[in-house]
């Protein structure tokens, strides 16, 4: 069943071909080369950025781990009394690394961890996975294989004889491991000082680190055995274990009985939660002006939902982001303009006539043209040069818009994230989605959050304003000088209020009075009076100021947080075809089958197949008819009945003038068609042969599909 095809001719170069494929698009293949290059460079930028983020986030964790390793190591080295104490009870230093449920992301963490350790602590690192270690023997084999290989790496190739000792020939046991360790450490001892100093990051007898990548999937027996055995040898071999844990640290105690877990000296390390990781990624990739490419609301929603509802995997999120980029640059010919501002002018000027037409076809651009006065309209539609100038201006505006958008969004988030019940969401991504979706100030949630903001107390308000000032100052937008001025003015006003506040203390006295009264009637009366007075009372200065502040924030939102798809030429920078993305990443194969079987008209645009409601026409493809008929059956299906029913339907669907003479042959053909359709259903997994009754098949699905 396997066939290999080798080309006779010499292959073409790969890099050329990729670019070439980008070009093989049916019609408007404009600037494909440039688009591809832009796409690639953008993706590489983003990729390195995400890697950097990941590194930064893991740094804390890695530092903690390293210091832990150092501690356990130094004790071994110095042979302090404490170490001896521990040796007596044979405790293995163990780091329990809680990584979270997004197992697919762990690989990256482990890779950076092992690299980091390799550079800083010890060359002797073994990464073990549960699927490689069904038994203790396999585990030892794997462990020794990895350790001895890595030691070869470090010691370079000067001792050839060592390399030749293949892992298979060594008996895989703890004692041989210890022997190996001794020989290795001795070798490093005896080596020339110059060599030692070159690898000075490692100590004299570096610890052997064994990492269990997925602790939960290891069989209990294997783990127990390994721990017990290695604890016997801990005084000869400075072993350190690292458990990668996806669920909770409790799992160690569930997997290992007390007698075994008491041999471990466990220290817990918590990695950053994947949600925080995602927030950082969104913060650094989307809410920044660094990259010209942006995600539209629906696309972002899809990506976030896949993350939240399906896998919690940041890697998948980034993969989705990559797909968005590729898809955008592939399908949008104008994406050539999706570049840094510095390149923009050159690219706009070199646009071809076709591309200009493409611009004119953009819906947002059309809306824009309609709003212009007639003279400009004509110029925009006829003169390419004018169009180019205008395009450049608009795109620059779009960039500026995004800059301002981000800053104001952050300011708004400062306000909304501290409100009770978070009407606009706790995370900035929720706010971002809300703002991209439509004009946020028209939503109820925004209304209620403004209401709540009007009830904030002073100290909160002041700190928020200060935060806003910081955000605006740090932003690259140039328009915010005035805004910052204004906010600062607010802040000073609040300051001044404090002095004024002492003077008017009228209301407090009335409350004191209130406490004196014990009579219910009087109490009620005073309360009513109080209420009256409060309603009629003029707002205090503080309240006035608070209103002013909130109104000002509101005006900022209305000015800057216009949804992106209201902006002209947003199609060039914003990717918004969520359906494509969803189809590729979060597909529903069963739904597609269901549709094809129940409603073939969806795919085959033939009038004969068109029908209403749940039924299908009797001219539908055989498999649809057979499928539809089998839905009516219970657990078992009688093939004869099925065949009869099928032939009835098909006969009715045939032309009435069919030859009577050939009816026998027709019968056979229908029989054959039936057989084909049934075996296709079997292939699809709807039915299977059954031995319960002769000529019966069992149904495997319930319900519509």
């Amino acid at each position, binding site marked *: *069943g396997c*066939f*290999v*095809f080798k*080309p006779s001719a010499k292959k073409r170069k*790969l890099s050329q071909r990729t670019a070439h*494929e980008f070009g093989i698009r049916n019609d408007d293949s404009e600037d494909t080369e440039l688009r591809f290059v832009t796409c690639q460079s953008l993706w590489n930028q983003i990729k390195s950025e995400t890697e950097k983020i990941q590194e930064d986030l893991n740094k804390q964790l890695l530092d903690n781990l390293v210091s832990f390793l150092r501690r356990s190591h130094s004790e071994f080295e110095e042979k302090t009394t404490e170490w001896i104490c521990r040796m007596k009870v044979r405790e293995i230093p163990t780091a329990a690394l809680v990584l979270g449920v997004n197992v*697919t992301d762990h690989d990256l963490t482990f890779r950076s961890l092992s690299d980091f350790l390799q550079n800083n602590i010890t060359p002797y690192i073994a990464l073990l996975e549960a699927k490689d270690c069904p038994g203790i023997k396999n585990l030892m084999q794997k462990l020794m294989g990895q350790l001895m290989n890595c030691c070869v790496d470090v010691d370079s190739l000067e001792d050839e004889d060592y390399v030749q000792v293949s892992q298979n020939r060594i008996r895989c046991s703890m004692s041989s491991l210890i022997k190996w360790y001794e020989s290795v450490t001795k070798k490093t001892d005896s080596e020339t000082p110059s060599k030692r100093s070159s690898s000075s990051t490692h100590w004299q007898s570096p610890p052997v680190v064994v990492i269990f990548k997925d602790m939960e999937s290891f069989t209990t027996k294997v783990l127990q055995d390994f721990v017990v055995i290695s604890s016997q040898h801990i005084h000869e071999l400075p072993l350190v274990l690292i458990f990668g844990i996806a669920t909770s640290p409790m799992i160690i105690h569930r997997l290992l009985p007390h007698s075994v877990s008491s041999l471990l000296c466990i220290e817990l390390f918590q990695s950053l939660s994947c949600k925080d990781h995602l927030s950082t990624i969104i913060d650094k990739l989307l809410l920044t002006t660094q990259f010209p490419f942006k995600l539209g609301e*629906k696309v972002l929603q*899809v990506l976030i*939902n896949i993350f939240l509802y399906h*896998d919690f995997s940041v890697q*998948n999120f980034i*993969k989705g982001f990559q797909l968005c980029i*590729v898809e955008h640059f592939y399908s949008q010919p104008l994406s050539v303009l999706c570049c840094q501002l510095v390149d923009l002018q050159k690219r706009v000027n070199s646009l071809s006539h076709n591309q200009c037409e493409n611009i004119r076809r953009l819906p947002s651009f059309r809306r824009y043209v309609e709003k212009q006065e007639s003279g400009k309209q004509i110029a925009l539609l006829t003169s390419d040069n004018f169009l180019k100038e205008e395009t450049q201006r608009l795109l620059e505006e779009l960039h500026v818009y995004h800059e301002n958008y981000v800053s104001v969004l952050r300011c708004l988030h400062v306000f909304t994230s501290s409100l009770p019940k978070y009407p606009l969401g706790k995370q900035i991504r929720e706010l971002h989605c809300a703002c991209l979706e439509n004009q946020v100030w028209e939503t109820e949630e925004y209304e209620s959050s403004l209401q709540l903001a009007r009830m904030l107390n002073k100290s909160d308000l002041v700190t928020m304003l200060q935060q806003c000032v910081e955000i605006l100052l740090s932003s690259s937008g140039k328009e915010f000088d005035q805004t910052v001025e204004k906010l600062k003015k607010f802040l000073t006003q609040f300051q001044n209020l404090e002095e004024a506040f002492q003077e008017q203390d009228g209301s407090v006295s009335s409350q004191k009075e209130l406490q004196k009264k014990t009579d219910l009637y009087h109490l009620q009366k005073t309360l009513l009076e109080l209420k009256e007075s409060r309603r009629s009372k003029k707002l205090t200065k503080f309240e006035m100021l608070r209103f002013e502040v909130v109104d000002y924030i509101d005006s900022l939102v209305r000015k800057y947080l216009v949804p992106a798809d209201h902006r002209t030429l947003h199609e060039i920078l914003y990717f918004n075809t969520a*359906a*494509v993305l969803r*189809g*590729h990443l*979060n597909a529903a*194969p*069963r*739904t597609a*089958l269901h549709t*094809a079987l129940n*409603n073939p008209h969806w795919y*085959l*645009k033939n009038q004969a197949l068109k029908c209403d409601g*749940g*039924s*299908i026409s009797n001219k539908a493809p*055989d498999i649809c008819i057979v499928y*539809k008929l089998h839905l*009516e*059956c219970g657990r*078992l*299906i009688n*093939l*004869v009945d099925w*065949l*009869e029913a*099928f*032939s009835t*339907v098909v006969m*009715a669907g045939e032309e*009435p003038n069919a030859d009577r003479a050939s009816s026998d042959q027709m019968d056979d*053909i229908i029989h*054959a068609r039936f057989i*084909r359709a049934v*075996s*296709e259903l*079997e*292939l*699809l*997994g709807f039915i299977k042969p059954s031995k319960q*009754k002769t000529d*019966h*098949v069992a149904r495997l*699905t319930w319900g*519509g599909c």
Partner: protein
Amino acid sequence: MSRIEGSGGGRRRVLQVKFVPDEEVLKHIADDTGIKVRKDKPQPSINLKRFVKKLENISDDEAQEILEEKNYVATLGICAQDPMGNGTSVSGGEVYSFQTPKRSSKMAELASELAHTPEQNVAPDRSKGPEKTAKTPQSGSNVMWAEIVWKCNLKKKEFVSTTPYRLRRRLAAPDSYLESESEYSASCSEEEDDEDQQQVNTVLSGQKTSAKTKAAPTPPPRNSLAKKNKEEKMSNLVEEYFEAHSSSKVLTSDRTLQKLRKRRLNQETLCDLLKKAPLAYAAEIIELNQQHESLFSKWMLQLHLGFNIVLYGLGSKRDLLEKFRTSLLQNSVHLVVNGYFPSITVRSILNSITEEVLDHIGTFRSPLDQLEFITKRFKEDSSLELYVLIHNLDSQMLRGERSQQILAQLSSLPSVYLIASIDHINAPLMWDQAKLSLYNWLWYETTTFNPYVEETSYENSLLVQQSGSLALSSLTHVLHSLTPNARGIFRLLAQYQLEKKDNPSYPGLSFQDFYQQCREAFLVNSDLTLRAQLTEFRDHKLIRTKRGADGVEYLLIPVDDSTLTNFLENQDEDV
């Protein structure tokens, strides 16, 4: 004979007869002309049908489900505006819900309905005119079929009587989904519904009271209803499921293909016949496929960017992939794996990579070792690249956990580009998160509606005559290499088996009897020689031994009768 004219109406009546109470059935048997009843019968039968359908709605209240699904769908950001996308409008509830266990004649009923659809387009109220039903071309087999079904129904009278009980039980549950339309009602004429509804009560005197309770309750307030319904539905679903699966007795008709006197087709004749049958909607299918073909360059691009591509959707994707291969992969090393091939293994895939792509001679201890070797080679040599096309990644042989793990790891190599197709409805269950991230799939819906010709040809299909020619030739070949005596022994056994072919509970020939017969024919002289001979047969899988209840050894040739007859005839010719 006025039979033909009335057969349309008559047939439908017959189809629905299962839902009619006993006395009506008896009445029906009593009248033999069929014309007399025709005047008033069609009406009740249709009503009955509608009634039954409404009852079905009681248990599968999908409307609510769909509503909730829609919410989820909305949060996922689906937009129905997608023109080519799969049927996103279909909600999960519709796809996955349980359904009530159906009565066996429902299929026949639906068949008749479907058979009448075009006619219905012309004239919405078909029930009224027998002259209209007479318009349909009635073939001979139709009539015959109707009669068969009729007879079957008579046989299963005890089942018929159970139906009303079931109905009554369903009715006991409070119901508010009366107003929701039945799934299949579209094929009934809508206009009749109202009057039918009223007639149901009068016609079905036996179920009158229950029908009234059904119609009576006013729907409670909406929101509380939703909750209540959900709980109810859950318990209902569970009950239905176990009801369907608990009883070992399944009520289906006892007819077999043999009684139908339809000869079993073998693979060749099947192919011939299918070639004669024109492929329906060829033009549309071609158009559909062309849409997919326009994506080839995009696939190529995405493969190069580190994604792998998986194709799903109804219809064979073999031709599509084949076209992709011939049009774009001619200049590169690629591996085609026919997953549907019954003896494919991961090992053979890995072997062909190591041996033919990497030109490595030597064996490996385990597939994991082999994979490691491949990984190493691909990492060392960055100019090496390989396209892997797998037809039916979800086939029986490849769907195992270990195979998928290996394939996933293989596909995660940066210079291995995998493009695969899946067909089975549960195929995505093969992959957990770890494998999915290794595969790094991009999903493409490619519904082609092409028949699965190659994919199903290997399958030992249900209706296709099995192992015919192959078994025969192997029999002949093995026998040729044996001594004349041994041939004679086998021949004896075969003849005996053919004699007993009409006995369905034939256990095989007991060893002692066989020994006796062989002795009489001067074929063996001791029971040891016979045993030695039988061992040889067994090693060649010519016979099978089975121990009976009494501990006696029985011998059987595991080949079907026609092959055996053929074999004996051939032998005679040779002699």
